[in-house]
């Protein structure tokens, strides 16, 4: 039985397979609308994340399956002190597959060790969120038609943003990918990512605090939120925040076929005037998130035609 705990649990081949299946579903959703009939997905959310939970539930419902679960720790047995291991042993007899979100790092790993059904990590603290990475990859692959030969700009909080870290880790496995890392000095990518990933793999990258200047070079711009509480003082925040905001004026410098992605929710880092720009694809990205979760649920349950994980 396979689980999905970290984006790197999947080989490049497995990833490509799931992304291709996602694209197939995107094209012919009706062909997949009964494939999970009689199956149940449990969404075990120890902390609320409405968007992610609904995305999983929509995916299962689109496949003709059913869903059950809880959406916060206080409505679950965890509030009574039950361990993750005990909870998953019980849930294993209620459902066929589960998606778990937990504020503590490694909780889904614990679940996978005691589970009799596939476990999907739906976010464990600041650690992993593999289905967000799959969503980002499906978005890039579908819109660009490729995952190699890309210059990808990442802007905002690159220090604490786990979606950024996961996406870098996933993208370095493709050839000729370059990164433009745009952030305030205080929020640059962590050292281990620079040394153990980018430099060790000889990946071309630059670190800068200039968004506008670098816009013309980008094929993809991945925006993230810069949170006020990440700054030491209010003045720094106010001084810096506008440099990392995307507005219609900055979009003028971008290529005609550049795409803007954002894991959502957005606060103010992308001005709403950008929304009507055809290059703004973050709402489309949310839609792709449902399709890639459909592909993932199917493969983990062995309902895909090639039975990728059951060969």
């Amino acid at each position: 039985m396979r689980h999905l705990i970290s984006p790197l649990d999947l080989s490049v081949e497995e990833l490509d397979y799931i992304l291709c299946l996602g694209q197939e579903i995107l094209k012919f959703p009706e062909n997949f609308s009964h494939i999970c009939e009689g199956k149940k997905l449990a969404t075990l959310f120890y902390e609320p994340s409405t968007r992610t939970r609904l995305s999983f539930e929509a995916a299962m419902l689109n496949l003709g399956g059913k869903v059950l679960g809880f959406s916060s720790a206080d409505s679950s047995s965890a509030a009574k002190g039950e361990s993750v291991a005990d909870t998953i042993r019980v849930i294993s007899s209620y459902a066929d597959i589960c998606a778990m979100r937990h504020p503590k790092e490694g909780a889904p790993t614990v679940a996978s060790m005691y589970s009799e059904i596939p476990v999907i990590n739906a976010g464990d603290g600041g650690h992993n969120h593999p289905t967000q990475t799959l969503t980002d990859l499906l978005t890039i692959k579908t819109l660009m038609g490729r995952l190699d030969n890309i210059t990808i700009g990442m802007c905002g909080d690159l220090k604490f943003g786990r979606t950024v870290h996961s996406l870098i880790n996933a993208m370095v496995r493709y050839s000729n990918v370059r990164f433009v890392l745009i952030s305030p000095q205080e929020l640059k990518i962590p050292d281990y990512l620079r040394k153990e990933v980018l430099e060790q793999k000889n990946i071309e990258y630059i670190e800068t605090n200039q968004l506008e200047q670098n816009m013309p070079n980008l094929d993809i711009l991945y925006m993230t939120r810069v949170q006020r509480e990440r700054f030491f003082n209010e003045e720094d925040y106010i001084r810096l925040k506008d440099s990392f905001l995307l507005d219609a004026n900055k979009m003028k410098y971008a290529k005609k076929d550049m795409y803007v992605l954002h894991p959502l929710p957005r606060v103010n880092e992308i001005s709403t005037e950008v929304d009507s720009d055809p290059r703004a694809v973050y709402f489309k990205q949310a839609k792709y998130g449902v399709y890639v979760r459909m592909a993932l649920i199917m493969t983990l349950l062995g309902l895909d035609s090639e039975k990728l994980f059951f060969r």
Partner: protein
Amino acid sequence: MLNIGVLNEGIVIDHIQAGGAMKIYKYLNLENLDCSVAIIKNARSNKMGKKDIIKIEGPFDIDLNVLGVLDHKITINIIKNNEIVEKKDLSLPERVTNIIRCKNPRCITSIEQELPHTFKLTDRKNHIYRCIYCESKFRGK
């Protein structure tokens, strides 16, 4: 009294990084051991400049595998009848359970007390162990 120079029977844990002896003392639970223990700090060493040494007297059974995880330069001499009968090389175990603990406050082990603390060797060359749950690096120092 334990003679610091000569040991009839026991173990000499040598080439401990200077300043590391107390940590090892703690990890091996030597305070609970009912026998003589000598800690020599900042001994001169040709190889290392300064080093720590621990000498433990008597026949006993301690799991020394933990030492490789804590400090891979350590060497171990087993002594019987005033002679070194065995020099042990420390191998780095692939996995260690309940020897070292994850200190990441965001790790699931921080709220579920009964979970085993398991680390796996993720980089043999650089002796890096990571928590199997949160993947935090173990920092021995």
